């Protein structure tokens, strides 16, 4: 039997939310890689692109990052008040007896 359609939609919604969180986590890394790209264009054999080109490139990446952050923030602000589920097990703090001081 199929579950009611609305319920399925909610499930999809929270699933999508968690994926957006994932994306938000990798966004800075992705951004860093893009910002480091100019380094790879500077090799001894080839003429580096002119500064103006790099300037345009960097500001374009910057703008793209801002746009992505803006879009993510629309999703993420809804998730702010909900507790987050974590997959990794905690550090059990009750297993070793704490020393009192």
């Amino acid at each position, binding site marked *: 039997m199929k579950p009611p359609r609305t319920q399925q939609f909610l499930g999809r919604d929270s699933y999508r939310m968690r994926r957006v*969180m994932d994306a*938000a*986590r990798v*966004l*800075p*890394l992705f*951004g*860093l890689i893009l*910002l*480091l790209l*100019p*380094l790879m264009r*500077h090799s001894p054999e080839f003429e*580096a692109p*002119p*500064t*103006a080109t*790099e*300037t*345009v490139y*960097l*500001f374009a990446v*910057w*703008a793209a*990052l*801002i*746009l*992505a*952050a*803006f879009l*993510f*923030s629309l999703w*993420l*602000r809804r998730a*702010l*008040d909900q*507790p*987050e*589920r*974590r997959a990794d*097990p*905690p*550090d*059990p*703090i*009750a297993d070793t*007896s*704490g*020393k*009192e*001081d």
Partner: protein
Amino acid sequence: MSFNLLVLTCLGYVVLLFVVASAAERAAEAGRAGWLRSPLVYTLSLSVYCTAWTFYGAVGYAARSGLEFMTIYLGPTLVFVGWWVILRKLVRIGRENRVTSIADMISARYGKSNLLGVIVTILCIMAGTPYIALQLQSIAQSFTVFVTDPAGSSLATDTTLIAFWVAAGLAFFTIAFGTRSLDANEQHPGVVTAIAVEAVVKLLALLAVGVFVVWFVATGPADILTRIDAQALPEWEIQPGRWTGLILLSAIAIICLPRMFQVTVVENTDDQHLATASWAFPVYLFLISLFVLPIAVIGMELMPAGSNPDMFVLTLPLHLGQDGLALFSFLGGFSAATSMVIVASLALATMVSNHIVVPLWLRARSARQQDTGDMRLLVLSVRRLSITLVLALGYIYYVITGGSAALAAIGLIAFVGVAQCLPALIGALYWRGASRNGAALGLVAGMLIWLYTLLLPSFGPDVFLSARLMESGLFDIAWLRPYSLFGLTTLDPLLHSLFWSLMVNVMAFCAGSILSFPSPIERVQGALFVDIFNRPGTARSWTRPIAEAEDLLPMAQRIFGLTEAQSFFRAQAKLQGKDSYLPDITPEFVEALELKLAGSVGSATAHAMLAQTVGTSIVSVDDLMAVASETAQIMEYSAQLEAKSEELSRTARQLREANEKLQTLSVQKDAFLSQISHELRTPMTSIRAFSEILMDTEGMADEERTHFAQIIHDESIRLTRLLDDLLDLSVLEHGQVQLNIAPAKLRNMIDKAISASNSVQADRKFTLHRSRDREDIEIVTDAGRLTQVFINVLSNSRKYCDAAEPQMRINVRRRGEMVEVDFVDNGSGIPRDQEALIFEKFSRLTDSLQAGGAGLGLAICREIMLNLKGDITYVPGQGGAAFRVSFPIRLQARDSAQPASADSAEAAE
């Protein structure tokens, strides 16, 4: 432009700021702070990141190094765009724990340790003071650049004097709006609003100059791009190391800078604001940077050679006759500098007062046990004094080093300094195992490396570090040269210092954390911080407080003031369902009070103050368990259950094993009792039967009478021996045995044992293999007792060895301080399931061949060996029954006095 006009403009601007700030304060007090607490104001307040160093310096930076200036803004952009990873957690924790500064944050996480608070405070002062000096310098410099009538006023050329008045004015402003009240959350709406206004001013000023340059000097973006390429210098080439390193460094700085922590975390009122700032602040940085390169390029093109590119933002409009624009630009730079100084001195002063002055005062007070005065006034005075002190330090620093190259570079140097907080801060958020000792160790180590490799050398040779030391290293060790530690010569000094300081910091932090044991409060705080998002409620670090509400109320009044303290107590009492001013002193109440206090005086001080009144805060293991169950157990339900069930099944298994052993022992005990009964009754039966015969038989032959009497005699001896064994065992078991410790030859003992055991089944041929040479060991022990053990083992073998031609091998071996004697026969040995029981005193393997023993022999042997600090074990799989007797070569006399069975494991292999 006249100097007086300039001063008037500045004053007018400052008055505007005062009006804005006080309006904001009034609105906040009246509860109409809605628009003040908007995401926009929050985002704009973050712009204190962009200081005068940004406003003026970025253009100079771009003129000298091309695109590299962008790294300073790209790092923060990445951090804000990735707010979900770090900032969100940082802000949430900061708000929920009413953190007052980065020092407070670190101190709170690591067990409310004031030591850490002090370390971070000192670090931040060292990094922050030169930075403040830099701002004073830039303001002073901009004045001199601007003023066209140097003769008009002596003040105009005296940069030191300008700097002094600026510092004084800023101190006044900061005190006025930063210490109006000891706000519960240590938030300052007036300051934040003024900062927001300044943010708009400096952005608009820079944009105005930029627009002018691009569209009125050049002919548009395309023209600018061609001019950029025309002006490009070889030094503009992007250097991979610096590019990467500076992006990371500025990313770290935006998290760790005290003033950034102040506006990002302390002044935050809502997570939603952060969501907006995640893109809006990068937009701000984007706009700030947009025209930097164009201004630099046009400046280089149009300004006379030798002009200071750091002042292009100001001098270019002046040069082109745009006095109005230049004035606006001047105000922008002024805004940038003042906002930074205000927030930085506020943040630093909070740290100084909360972590250094107030704790010292509390300590002094507790020593004198005086309990009077309004703490509120004291804390505010301390705060005001600290602000003055911080600004004075900045000013003095400026005067001493004024205008030197060292000051210009101080921005990045300060970044590396505050970056030392990063490991402790990240550990605070993500690693429960991070401990106070680790954090302190890492901070101090990183700070020292930073001082040695960057800050001190930056003043130039022979100021702090001698030229000789710079050249050939500490103690003339080349590997200790400040700019190339361990021979690392390829990095530039900044990256070199960043690399080594963070590397050593992280290593010390990890090692210290791994090797130390955190205190219970640290563990509670660690759980609270790390699991902030997985927590259904707050955990407590207070248990069973013993103070009365009457004691706490006066203390709270001293901090919050009469009205607020009373209304807080009243509200708490209401929460508890009580209609009175005094709530019950529950852990929850003390926790709430501590949190409120922490908002005013910092967590460590708040904790110390409450501890002084309430008594010691005892965090018991039970509480830790409670935290564990509240935080972890609920969310990681299945993992916990799994671990629990595994633990349960392990316990159950152990219980089952213990139970089985107990049951076996119980059966053995019953069997033993009935065995003892049998052993006692059997000789008795013979004795009674024959004595009756002797009594009632007339005319018995003498020979027969003697025979019967002999039987009675033998059986009596058998009875006596049995009782002796039982007594012996009892004495040995209770460790009351007197040992006669003396030197003796092992060989003689074995000889004696062999001849004594020969009487057992003397008709059976029993072959012995031994190595008399190896037995030639002199030992110090109770020879009689040890021989008794040997006799027992040998007799057992003679009794039970079921081989057709019984053989026994005796093997002697030295193992360190121990001697091992193995007795191995060629019988079928002891069944596996019986091995565990043969040394139990109620055991006897079979009922056959009960040659006078009652199964006590091996039990006695074991007790003897334990008394002799040795052991007797059964060694399976030797092709027969094999017993290993081990004992120390030299038995210390006093060791034997202790109860024996406690250290049975000691000699076991």
